[in-house]
């Protein structure tokens, strides 16, 4: 039995082209959905226990119930006021502590989240867990005797590489489709509680959590979704064009 931990992020539904009124407020990050689908495919071939690990508010539980209806065995929500405002540094501290409490052979991540788009979490997580990390993974070929073989993209080449477990793999693709579920599994998932871990449960140092433990801070946020698209034809030398670009970036 391979113990797979899939780190997922729940994002706002309108970021993934859904309507809140019909589809709910939240959805799974499309990169994580792709990774999760791949792991569920793997489970059909190799005995696996899939655990989904997610940081977020308690009202994202529906999305984790959906994951369980897709075939995830266990879903753990890391939820605590102390976690709020975490940047990628604090996030990986939190995730790593939670993962250390679990049995794990394989950690699976999507390459980034559609809200933050930093793509730093999987690498930072691998470093905190002191594990090898394989990025740009397209698919898992085989997994047996504590060894995994994956295909990953490296520039113009598609490489096949084998590695000893435990390790971290990062899937490069995304899907905007909702994962296929089974309604009976959904019903069972609805009646079995989602495990919620607080900072205390993972024995975290409060000073290293959330905004306090973060290395970066969001100073100012502007909603740019209502900005109109404009077309400008720029003439002049390279330096004039770059000066113009700098000005536009500064203004926006």
């Amino acid at each position, binding site marked *: 039995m391979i113990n797979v931990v899939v780190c997922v992020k729940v994002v706002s539904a309108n970021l993934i082209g859904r309507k809140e009124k019909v589809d709910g407020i939240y959805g799974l990050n499309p990169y994580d959905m792709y990774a999760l689908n791949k792991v569920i495919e793997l489970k059909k071939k190799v005995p696996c226990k899939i655990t989904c690990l997610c940081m977020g508010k308690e009202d994202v539980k529906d999305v984790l119930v959906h994951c369980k209806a897709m075939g995830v065995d266990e879903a753990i929500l890391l939820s605590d006021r102390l976690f709020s405002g975490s940047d990628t540094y604090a996030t990986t501290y939190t995730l790593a502590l939670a993962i250390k409490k679990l049995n794990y052979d394989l950690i699976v991540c999507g390459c980034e989240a559609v809200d933050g788009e930093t793509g730093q979490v999987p690498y930072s997580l691998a470093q905190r867990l002191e594990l090898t990390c394989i990025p740009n993974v397209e698919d898992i070929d085989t997994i047996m005797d504590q060894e995994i073989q994956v295909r990953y993209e490296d520039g113009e080449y598609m490489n096949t590489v084998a590695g000893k477990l435990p390790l971290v793999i990062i899937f490069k693709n995304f899907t905007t489709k*909702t994962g296929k579920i089974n309604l009976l599994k959904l019903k069972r998932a609805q009646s079995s509680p989602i495990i919620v871990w607080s900072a205390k449960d993972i024995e975290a140092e409060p000073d290293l959590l959330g905004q306090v433990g973060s290395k970066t801070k969001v100073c100012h946020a502007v909603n740019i979704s209502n900005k109109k698209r404009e077309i400008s034809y720029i003439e002049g030398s390279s330096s004039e064009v770059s000066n113009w670009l700098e000005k536009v970036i500064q203004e926006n």
Partner: protein
Amino acid sequence: MDFTLSEEQKQLRREIIQFSREYLNDENCMDFFSREMWEEISQLGIHGVIVSEEYGGMNESFLTGAIMIEALGYGCKNNGFVFVVNNHIWVGLNLIYLYGSDLLKEKYLRNMVEGKYIGSIAISEADSGSDAFSMETTAQEKDDCYILNGSKMFISNGSIADVFVVFAKVMVDNLAQITGFVVEKAFDGVKCGQDIEKMGLNSCPMCEVTFNNVKVPKENVLGTVGGGKSLITSALEWERCYEFACHVGAMQRVMEECIRYADERRQFGKAIGENQAVSHKIADMRIKIEMSRLMLYKIACLKDKKRNAYVETSIFKVFVSESYIQVCRDALQIYGAYGYTKEYGIERELRDAIACSIYSGTNEILRNTIYDMSKISVL
């Protein structure tokens, strides 16, 4: 009766809508039955909505079932495919679940819940439609079997079905008594005719099914010998509720499309929705939808309480079918020339809708039923 949806019911509804939109709306599959889509919906597990978990079902209430089928009609634009699913669930699988012996359930139910067998019901004949009980198909007792002979007409799911619930006359004490049988297509002597071309619901195949000296094991009698009339009555009650539940969702979908279009389409310098000739049509749609939904949930609650809802389902069927047709006609009018084109899908919706004033008992026959039952009802 409390129709407040629980969080679980809301999530079920959401999931079915998302699933339907993503996996059941392939524009290339609107005119024929898609086996791939059938596999998809079978994996979703909707077939076993009210069936106990013992047979792989969800063991949900009839109210939750109504909410789910309404969501399916809302999310899935392929009305013919929804019709296939409903035929399979409510008058194929459901009759075996509710009235079949343990042996019959063991034989067929799990495979039907998993979608490995597709179900269908065979009542109508070429010369007995509304007058269903005048059927001429016969079943004659012989040794450990019944020998089935006759022909059934306009059988929805006909050519794709694996299991038919067939009604035939059996001689009991010198009286011809209608009896239900579960008949496999694989039995010798069962033949399906060519699919009949129709005006709409093209992804639901319909054909004639003939039975020529078909040996049906006695264990495949559904319910009791001679108990077929009450089975048909029950089947129609389920049909008139759940095969029309999806139309409530479909009307909602059409209305929302009209609202969007009326807001976007500008003529004479303003959105056409600002004209009351348009907005009142949409308001009328909403009235029809609300009334239909209330009635649907009421009937589902009655069924959850194991109450008879024959007259309620008859009223519901007439009201929803006429509302659905009117909603589609109004939608076509709002869309104007665009609505009349094939591209927008409104004309297909209207062609699909027209069928519902005919199947499950024509609205004229149902008005007779409603009138007869109203005479004996008191407040």
